[in-house]
């Protein structure tokens, strides 16, 4: 076999090992963020692509139904490409507030310069060294992951990641609100820097919604 192909598989193995180290950090950091809030639970939602799940007609509970032959994306196998950690609802100052942190490992598709970018064709993505990785913080009271125009979560996230502005504050006439801000992953290099992000998002929510999202 060619040396080039050997090298390519070395890179694949290295990529997985790097991802394992990366994801263990993401999990530590998500847990750290949640411990600074009143939330005590956590749920996950895979974003960007489908989940792999069993159906009633699967031969065994451990086996999932796959349609590899045609419409299955390679991204379906990669949970941490874009993943939402939903903390659920908590009563804060007599309001039921929801909160999530969304892991965006690569915004290359959303910021693509191609005419017709395809989520399955990485050659249409913005190059990796020009793209970014983020943790998106979002919280809402009777409004969720939206702005004035876009009230569909997926469409809102697409728009939010494509735009240069890193913050979105939505508030309607009833006072319901949804506040979203993205932070580059590099800002979670240390506990001190993570604390600065937490206090920044806490201040944003305090300024616009008047509540203290984080514990002191």
């Amino acid at each position, binding site marked *: 076999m060619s040396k*080039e192909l050997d090298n390519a598989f070395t*890179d694949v193995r290295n990529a997985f090992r790097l991802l394992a180290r990366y994801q263990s950090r993401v999990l530590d950091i998500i847990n750290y963020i949640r411990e600074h809030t009143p939330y005590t639970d956590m749920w996950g939602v895979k974003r960007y692509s489908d989940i792999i799940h069993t159906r009633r007609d699967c031969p065994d509970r451990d086996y999932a139904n796959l349609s590899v032959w045609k419409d299955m994306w390679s991204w379906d196998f990669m949970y941490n490409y874009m993943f939402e950690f939903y903390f659920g609802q908590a009563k804060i100052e007599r309001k039921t507030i929801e909160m999530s942190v969304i892991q965006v490992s690569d915004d290359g598709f959303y910021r693509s310069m191609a005419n017709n970018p395809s989520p399955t064709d990485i050659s249409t993505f913005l190059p990796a060294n020009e793209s970014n990785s983020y943790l998106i913080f979002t919280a809402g009271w009777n409004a969720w992951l939206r702005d004035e125009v876009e009230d569909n979560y997926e469409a809102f996230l697409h728009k939010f990641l494509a735009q240069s502005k890193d913050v979105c504050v939505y508030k309607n006439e009833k006072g319901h609100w949804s506040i979203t801000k993205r932070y580059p992953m590099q800002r979670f290099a240390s506990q001190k820097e993570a604390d600065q992000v937490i206090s920044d998002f806490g201040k944003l929510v305090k300024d616009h919604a008047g509540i203290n999202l984080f514990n002191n």
Partner: protein
Amino acid sequence: MIYSTYHHKDTYEDPKTSSVFETMLMLPDELFWSVLRTACFDNENLPLVAGQIEDYQFWPHWDASDTSNSILVEPDLFIRFQAFDLIIEAKFSDNSGQYSQQWKNEITAYSNEYGNEKPVYFIAVGGNAEKATEIIALSDGVAVNKCTWLSVLIQVSKMRDEYEAPPMIPNILSSVLRILNLTELAFNINGVYNIHWFDGIKTAKPLISPYSFTTFKSFFR
């Protein structure tokens, strides 16, 4: 925070000192000393074997004669091991707050109370800008060893990982494991975390070669 609540001390480093050390003190004596000794940055002067913990006191009140204090001297924690005595002075932050006059006072006040019947060691937990051991210029020149809250937590987590490793954990060790987990929680609720941040995956240059993408494209269309 049992001891700090009992002593009506609910500010600064006191609840932190209380919750961390009261849980750690439940460990078997030799494990407690091993964690603390290893957490100190320079620890060659500290004995490897401490023996049994005979007594301990949070915030004892000592005679202030010959110190700069007028009423009393109050170290954070005093532990009497079989082989030596240990004074612990803790500060809330890891980087500032310790000062040598306070160490001198505590060492002098220790002599007022206990004379020189036993060797005495001093550990300053947190609060040190400089991590190297300092010798306090008194007649008997006691060394002040230093550690941070984080360096103690790292040792606790390391020991926990070691105890978790064997496939079968005997009952006696499962209680040690519970104490280590509880100690870690005591650190966490006081803002000390031993978690991996992104700093740890820094790399001088990207690991994955762009050529691999083109290789895959040419071999597997």
